[in-house]
Protein backbone atom coordinates (compact mmCIF):
# COMPACT_ATOMS: atom_id res chain seq x y z
CA UNK A 1 0.00 0.00 0.00
CA UNK A 2 1.30 3.45 -0.95
CA UNK A 3 2.17 5.70 1.95
CA UNK A 4 0.69 9.17 1.58
CA UNK A 5 3.06 12.11 1.91
CA UNK A 6 2.48 14.88 4.37
CA UNK A 7 3.35 17.93 2.28
CA UNK A 8 1.52 21.23 2.42
CA UNK A 9 0.05 22.60 -0.80
CA UNK A 10 0.57 26.26 -1.53
CA UNK A 11 -2.54 28.25 -2.46
CA UNK A 12 -3.00 28.78 -6.20
CA UNK A 13 -2.45 32.12 -7.92
CA UNK A 14 -6.04 32.99 -8.68
CA UNK A 15 -7.00 35.09 -11.67
CA UNK A 16 -10.46 36.15 -12.75
CA UNK A 17 -9.94 34.96 -16.32
CA UNK A 18 -7.95 32.00 -17.60
CA UNK A 19 -6.00 34.06 -20.13
CA UNK A 20 -4.58 36.20 -17.32
CA UNK A 21 -2.39 33.19 -16.46
CA UNK A 22 -0.63 33.38 -19.79
CA UNK A 23 2.70 35.13 -20.16
CA UNK A 24 4.83 35.46 -23.25
CA UNK A 25 8.58 35.89 -23.55
CA UNK A 26 9.49 39.15 -25.29
CA UNK A 27 12.71 37.56 -26.48
CA UNK A 28 11.71 34.14 -27.88
CA UNK A 29 7.88 34.53 -28.03
CA UNK A 30 7.23 31.33 -26.12
CA UNK A 31 4.23 31.15 -23.80
CA UNK A 32 3.88 29.86 -20.25
CA UNK A 33 1.14 29.56 -17.65
CA UNK A 34 3.54 28.96 -14.76
CA UNK A 35 4.88 31.65 -12.47
CA UNK A 36 8.58 31.22 -13.32
CA UNK A 37 10.80 34.31 -13.31
CA UNK A 38 12.93 33.39 -16.32
CA UNK A 39 11.78 31.96 -19.62
CA UNK A 40 12.41 28.20 -19.58
CA UNK A 41 13.32 28.26 -23.29
CA UNK A 42 15.75 31.19 -23.65
CA UNK A 43 16.55 31.75 -19.97
CA UNK A 44 15.93 35.51 -20.10
CA UNK A 45 13.83 37.51 -17.64
CA UNK A 46 11.56 38.75 -20.38
CA UNK A 47 8.20 37.21 -19.53
CA UNK A 48 5.25 39.58 -19.83
CA UNK A 49 1.53 38.99 -19.23
CA UNK A 50 -0.38 38.72 -22.51
CA UNK A 51 -2.51 41.73 -21.56
CA UNK A 52 0.65 43.87 -21.35
CA UNK A 53 1.80 42.63 -24.75
CA UNK A 54 -1.60 43.38 -26.26
CA UNK A 55 -1.53 46.87 -24.70
CA UNK A 56 1.90 47.47 -26.20
CA UNK A 57 0.72 46.32 -29.63
CA UNK A 58 -2.39 48.50 -29.40
CA UNK A 59 -0.35 51.54 -28.38
CA UNK A 60 2.17 50.87 -31.14
CA UNK A 61 -0.49 50.87 -33.85
CA UNK A 62 -2.05 54.04 -32.43
CA UNK A 63 1.37 55.70 -32.13
CA UNK A 64 2.14 55.19 -35.81
CA UNK A 65 -1.09 57.02 -36.70
CA UNK A 66 -0.08 59.89 -34.45
CA UNK A 67 3.36 60.06 -36.08
CA UNK A 68 1.74 60.30 -39.50
CA UNK A 69 -0.34 63.30 -38.35
CA UNK A 70 2.81 64.91 -36.99
CA UNK A 71 4.65 64.30 -40.26
CA UNK A 72 1.87 65.80 -42.37
CA UNK A 73 1.73 68.84 -40.09
CA UNK A 74 5.49 69.37 -40.37
CA UNK A 75 5.44 69.05 -44.18
CA UNK A 76 2.63 71.56 -44.46
CA UNK A 77 4.52 73.95 -42.15
CA UNK A 78 7.77 73.57 -44.10
CA UNK A 79 6.07 74.23 -47.44
CA UNK A 80 3.89 77.08 -46.17
CA UNK A 81 4.40 80.22 -48.34
CA UNK A 82 3.41 82.75 -45.65
CA UNK A 83 3.45 83.09 -41.90
CA UNK A 84 -0.36 82.89 -41.95
CA UNK A 85 -0.18 79.42 -43.55
CA UNK A 86 2.41 78.32 -41.00
CA UNK A 87 0.04 79.37 -38.19
CA UNK A 88 -2.95 77.63 -39.84
CA UNK A 89 -0.93 74.42 -40.41
CA UNK A 90 0.44 74.37 -36.86
CA UNK A 91 -2.95 75.12 -35.29
CA UNK A 92 -4.67 72.46 -37.43
CA UNK A 93 -2.00 69.90 -36.62
CA UNK A 94 -2.20 70.57 -32.87
CA UNK A 95 -6.02 70.55 -32.85
CA UNK A 96 -6.21 67.31 -34.81
CA UNK A 97 -3.57 65.69 -32.64
CA UNK A 98 -5.54 66.60 -29.50
CA UNK A 99 -8.75 65.26 -31.09
CA UNK A 100 -6.93 62.11 -32.12
CA UNK A 101 -5.44 61.61 -28.64
CA UNK A 102 -8.87 61.95 -26.99
CA UNK A 103 -10.49 59.48 -29.37
CA UNK A 104 -7.49 57.15 -29.09
CA UNK A 105 -7.69 57.09 -25.31
CA UNK A 106 -11.33 56.08 -25.50
CA UNK A 107 -10.61 53.42 -28.11
CA UNK A 108 -7.56 51.94 -26.36
CA UNK A 109 -9.39 49.30 -24.29
CA UNK A 110 -11.26 47.95 -27.31
CA UNK A 111 -8.03 47.96 -29.31
CA UNK A 112 -6.32 45.93 -26.56
CA UNK A 113 -9.12 43.36 -26.58
CA UNK A 114 -8.89 43.10 -30.38
CA UNK A 115 -5.09 42.65 -30.17
CA UNK A 116 -5.53 39.93 -27.53
CA UNK A 117 -8.05 38.11 -29.66
CA UNK A 118 -5.71 38.31 -32.69
CA UNK A 119 -2.82 37.09 -30.54
CA UNK A 120 -4.75 33.98 -29.38
CA UNK A 121 -5.67 33.04 -32.94
CA UNK A 122 -2.25 33.80 -34.43
CA UNK A 123 -0.24 32.12 -31.64
CA UNK A 124 -2.58 29.22 -30.92
CA UNK A 125 0.02 26.54 -31.69
CA UNK A 126 2.71 28.43 -29.82
CA UNK A 127 0.45 28.76 -26.76
CA UNK A 128 -0.43 25.05 -26.91
CA UNK A 129 3.27 24.14 -27.22
CA UNK A 130 4.08 26.34 -24.22
CA UNK A 131 1.40 24.67 -22.11
CA UNK A 132 2.63 21.20 -23.09
CA UNK A 133 6.13 22.31 -22.05
CA UNK A 134 4.62 23.49 -18.73
CA UNK A 135 3.04 20.07 -18.23
CA UNK A 136 6.37 18.37 -18.87
CA UNK A 137 7.99 20.61 -16.26
CA UNK A 138 5.19 19.75 -13.80
CA UNK A 139 5.53 16.02 -14.45
CA UNK A 140 9.32 16.18 -14.00
CA UNK A 141 9.07 17.48 -10.41
CA UNK A 142 10.28 15.11 -7.67
CA UNK A 143 7.82 16.50 -5.19
CA UNK A 144 4.18 15.45 -5.77
CA UNK A 145 2.80 18.59 -4.15
CA UNK A 146 4.90 20.89 -6.39
CA UNK A 147 3.94 18.79 -9.38
CA UNK A 148 0.25 19.16 -8.53
CA UNK A 149 0.63 22.92 -7.95
CA UNK A 150 2.16 23.42 -11.40
CA UNK A 151 -0.37 21.14 -13.06
CA UNK A 152 -3.17 23.06 -11.39
CA UNK A 153 -1.92 26.28 -13.04
CA UNK A 154 -1.86 24.67 -16.50
CA UNK A 155 -5.25 23.01 -15.95
CA UNK A 156 -6.85 26.45 -15.77
CA UNK A 157 -6.34 26.64 -19.55
CA UNK A 158 -5.97 23.03 -20.69
CA UNK A 159 -9.17 21.28 -19.72
CA UNK A 160 -9.33 17.58 -20.38
CA UNK A 161 -9.82 14.37 -18.44
CA UNK A 162 -6.19 13.32 -18.87
CA UNK A 163 -4.84 16.28 -16.91
CA UNK A 164 -7.68 15.98 -14.38
CA UNK A 165 -6.80 12.34 -13.80
CA UNK A 166 -3.13 13.23 -13.27
CA UNK A 167 -4.14 15.88 -10.74
CA UNK A 168 -6.37 13.40 -8.87
CA UNK A 169 -3.54 10.82 -8.76
CA UNK A 170 -1.15 13.42 -7.38
CA UNK A 171 -3.69 14.57 -4.78
CA UNK A 172 -4.29 10.97 -3.74
CA UNK A 173 -0.58 10.60 -3.01
CA UNK A 174 -0.79 13.39 -0.42
CA UNK A 175 -2.29 13.60 3.05
CA UNK A 176 -5.16 16.00 2.48
CA UNK A 177 -5.86 18.61 5.13
CA UNK A 178 -8.64 21.05 5.79
CA UNK A 179 -6.31 24.07 5.54
CA UNK A 180 -5.22 23.14 2.01
CA UNK A 181 -6.64 25.03 -0.95
CA UNK A 182 -8.32 22.07 -2.60
CA UNK A 183 -10.75 21.91 -5.50
CA UNK A 184 -13.26 19.37 -6.67
CA UNK A 185 -15.64 20.46 -9.42
CA UNK A 186 -12.87 21.31 -11.93
CA UNK A 187 -11.52 17.77 -11.40
CA UNK A 188 -14.74 15.88 -12.12
CA UNK A 189 -14.26 13.39 -14.95
CA UNK A 190 -16.66 12.25 -17.63
CA UNK A 191 -16.34 8.58 -16.67
CA UNK A 192 -16.19 6.66 -13.41
CA UNK A 193 -12.85 6.70 -11.67
CA UNK A 194 -12.20 4.99 -8.31
CA UNK A 195 -9.42 7.46 -7.44
CA UNK A 196 -11.82 10.35 -7.95
CA UNK A 197 -14.46 8.57 -5.86
CA UNK A 198 -11.89 8.12 -3.05
CA UNK A 199 -10.93 11.79 -3.35
CA UNK A 200 -14.60 12.79 -3.06
CA UNK A 201 -14.87 10.54 0.01
CA UNK A 202 -11.89 12.28 1.62
CA UNK A 203 -13.29 15.72 0.87
CA UNK A 204 -16.63 14.68 2.37
CA UNK A 205 -14.71 14.25 5.62
CA UNK A 206 -12.49 17.33 5.60
CA UNK A 207 -14.09 19.89 3.25
CA UNK A 208 -17.68 19.00 2.60
CA UNK A 209 -18.42 22.56 1.39
CA UNK A 210 -16.62 21.64 -1.86
CA UNK A 211 -19.27 19.01 -2.63
CA UNK A 212 -21.86 20.73 -4.78
CA UNK A 213 -24.45 19.90 -7.45
CA UNK A 214 -22.10 18.53 -10.12
CA UNK A 215 -20.43 16.23 -7.56
CA UNK A 216 -23.77 14.95 -6.27
CA UNK A 217 -24.81 14.26 -9.86
CA UNK A 218 -21.51 12.45 -10.53
CA UNK A 219 -21.85 10.32 -7.39
CA UNK A 220 -25.49 9.45 -8.14
CA UNK A 221 -24.58 8.56 -11.74
CA UNK A 222 -21.88 6.13 -10.57
CA UNK A 223 -23.50 5.09 -7.27
CA UNK A 224 -23.36 1.38 -8.06
CA UNK A 225 -19.67 1.44 -9.01
CA UNK A 226 -18.82 3.44 -5.88
CA UNK A 227 -20.88 1.07 -3.73
CA UNK A 228 -18.85 -1.85 -5.12
CA UNK A 229 -15.57 -0.23 -3.96
CA UNK A 230 -13.87 -1.35 -0.76
CA UNK A 231 -15.01 1.66 1.29
CA UNK A 232 -17.67 2.70 -1.21
CA UNK A 233 -20.50 2.83 1.31
CA UNK A 234 -18.48 5.19 3.51
CA UNK A 235 -17.92 7.46 0.51
CA UNK A 236 -21.64 7.48 -0.28
CA UNK A 237 -22.52 8.16 3.35
CA UNK A 238 -19.98 11.01 3.42
CA UNK A 239 -21.51 12.55 0.30
CA UNK A 240 -24.99 12.13 1.77
CA UNK A 241 -23.72 13.91 4.88
CA UNK A 242 -22.51 16.76 2.68
CA UNK A 243 -25.94 17.00 1.01
CA UNK A 244 -27.52 17.65 4.40
CA UNK A 245 -25.72 21.01 4.45
CA UNK A 246 -28.53 22.73 2.60
CA UNK A 247 -32.27 22.25 2.41
CA UNK A 248 -32.03 22.69 -1.37
CA UNK A 249 -29.65 19.73 -1.68
CA UNK A 250 -31.85 17.58 0.58
CA UNK A 251 -34.81 18.36 -1.65
CA UNK A 252 -32.91 17.84 -4.91
CA UNK A 253 -31.25 14.57 -3.87
CA UNK A 254 -33.94 13.16 -1.54
CA UNK A 255 -33.87 9.74 -3.21
CA UNK A 256 -30.08 9.44 -2.80
CA UNK A 257 -30.35 10.57 0.83
CA UNK A 258 -33.12 8.05 1.51
CA UNK A 259 -30.77 5.27 0.36
CA UNK A 260 -27.89 6.37 2.58
CA UNK A 261 -29.53 8.12 5.56
CA UNK A 262 -29.05 5.02 7.70
CA UNK A 263 -25.24 5.35 7.50
CA UNK A 264 -25.18 9.03 8.45
CA UNK A 265 -23.42 9.92 11.70
CA UNK A 266 -25.65 11.30 14.43
CA UNK A 267 -24.94 15.01 13.81
CA UNK A 268 -25.69 14.73 10.07
CA UNK A 269 -28.81 12.67 10.68
CA UNK A 270 -29.97 15.18 13.29
CA UNK A 271 -29.60 17.92 10.69
CA UNK A 272 -31.50 15.84 8.09
CA UNK A 273 -34.22 14.98 10.60
CA UNK A 274 -34.61 18.65 11.49
CA UNK A 275 -34.91 19.73 7.83
CA UNK A 276 -37.49 17.05 7.02
CA UNK A 277 -39.49 17.47 10.24
CA UNK A 278 -39.60 21.24 10.14
CA UNK A 279 -40.77 21.32 6.52
CA UNK A 280 -43.62 18.82 6.43
CA UNK A 281 -45.28 20.64 3.52
CA UNK A 282 -42.45 19.81 1.09
CA UNK A 283 -42.43 16.67 -1.01
CA UNK A 284 -39.67 14.49 0.44
CA UNK A 285 -40.77 11.23 -1.20
CA UNK A 286 -39.31 8.09 0.38
CA UNK A 287 -36.94 10.20 2.47
CA UNK A 288 -39.68 11.24 4.92
CA UNK A 289 -40.64 7.64 5.76
CA UNK A 290 -36.99 6.54 5.93
CA UNK A 291 -36.05 9.39 8.29
CA UNK A 292 -39.01 8.59 10.53
CA UNK A 293 -38.02 4.90 10.54
CA UNK A 294 -34.37 5.61 11.46
CA UNK A 295 -35.49 8.07 14.13
CA UNK A 296 -37.74 5.49 15.73
CA UNK A 297 -35.12 2.76 15.55
CA UNK A 298 -32.06 4.69 16.72
CA UNK A 299 -32.80 8.12 18.16
CA UNK A 300 -36.29 8.02 19.65
CA UNK A 301 -34.96 8.52 23.19
CA UNK A 302 -32.10 10.82 22.25
CA UNK A 303 -32.40 14.19 24.01
CA UNK A 304 -31.01 16.13 21.00
CA UNK A 305 -33.93 14.96 18.86
CA UNK A 306 -36.59 15.93 21.40
CA UNK A 307 -36.13 19.67 20.89
CA UNK A 308 -36.97 19.67 17.19
CA UNK A 309 -40.18 21.58 16.49
CA UNK A 310 -41.72 22.58 13.13
CA UNK A 311 -40.23 25.91 11.98
CA UNK A 312 -39.80 27.63 8.63
CA UNK A 313 -36.28 29.03 8.74
CA UNK A 314 -33.43 26.61 8.41
CA UNK A 315 -29.94 28.04 8.38
CA UNK A 316 -27.33 26.28 6.33
CA UNK A 317 -24.36 24.78 8.14
Amino acid at each position, binding site marked *: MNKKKNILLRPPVKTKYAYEK*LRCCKNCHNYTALGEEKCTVCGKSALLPVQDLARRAAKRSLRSDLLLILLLTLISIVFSPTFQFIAISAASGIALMILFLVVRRKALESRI*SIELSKMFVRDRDRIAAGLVRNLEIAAAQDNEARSYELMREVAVII*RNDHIRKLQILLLQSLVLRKDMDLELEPLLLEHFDPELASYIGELAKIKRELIKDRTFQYVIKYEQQISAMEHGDDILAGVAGAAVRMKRYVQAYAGFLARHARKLPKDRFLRLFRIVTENPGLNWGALQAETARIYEEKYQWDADFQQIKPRSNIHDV
Partner: protein
Amino acid sequence: MVTYGCLTLLFLFAIVKSVLYYKRREQIIAPEELDAQLLQLINHEERVP
Protein backbone atom coordinates in the same frame (compact mmCIF):
# COMPACT_ATOMS: atom_id res chain seq x y z
CA MET B 1 0.09 73.66 -53.24
CA VAL B 2 2.00 71.17 -51.10
CA THR B 3 0.63 72.84 -47.97
CA TYR B 4 -2.94 72.61 -49.27
CA GLY B 5 -2.44 68.94 -50.14
CA CYS B 6 -0.89 68.12 -46.77
CA LEU B 7 -3.60 69.94 -44.85
CA THR B 8 -6.33 68.17 -46.81
CA LEU B 9 -4.66 64.82 -46.20
CA LEU B 10 -4.18 65.69 -42.54
CA PHE B 11 -7.85 66.53 -42.02
CA LEU B 12 -9.04 63.54 -44.00
CA PHE B 13 -6.73 61.16 -42.17
CA ALA B 14 -7.57 62.49 -38.72
CA ILE B 15 -11.31 62.46 -39.35
CA VAL B 16 -11.38 58.98 -40.94
CA LYS B 17 -9.19 57.51 -38.21
CA SER B 18 -11.19 59.19 -35.44
CA VAL B 19 -14.44 57.82 -36.87
CA LEU B 20 -12.88 54.36 -37.13
CA TYR B 21 -11.63 54.46 -33.53
CA TYR B 22 -14.97 55.73 -32.33
CA LYS B 23 -16.73 52.85 -34.06
CA ARG B 24 -14.19 50.30 -32.79
CA ARG B 25 -14.77 51.53 -29.27
CA GLU B 26 -18.17 49.86 -29.44
CA GLN B 27 -16.64 46.60 -30.73
CA ILE B 28 -14.87 45.83 -27.47
CA ILE B 29 -14.45 42.09 -26.87
CA ALA B 30 -15.53 41.27 -23.33
CA PRO B 31 -12.99 39.40 -21.13
CA GLU B 32 -15.48 36.52 -20.86
CA GLU B 33 -15.52 36.24 -24.66
CA LEU B 34 -11.70 36.34 -24.80
CA ASP B 35 -11.57 33.63 -22.16
CA ALA B 36 -14.02 31.43 -24.05
CA GLN B 37 -12.09 32.03 -27.28
CA LEU B 38 -8.78 30.97 -25.73
CA LEU B 39 -10.28 27.87 -24.09
CA GLN B 40 -12.01 26.91 -27.30
CA LEU B 41 -8.83 27.35 -29.33
CA ILE B 42 -6.71 25.33 -26.92
CA ASN B 43 -9.20 22.62 -26.00
CA HIS B 44 -11.06 22.44 -29.35
CA GLU B 45 -14.29 22.22 -27.39
CA GLU B 46 -16.25 24.31 -24.92
CA ARG B 47 -16.77 22.77 -21.56
CA VAL B 48 -18.34 23.88 -18.32
CA PRO B 49 -15.41 25.17 -16.21
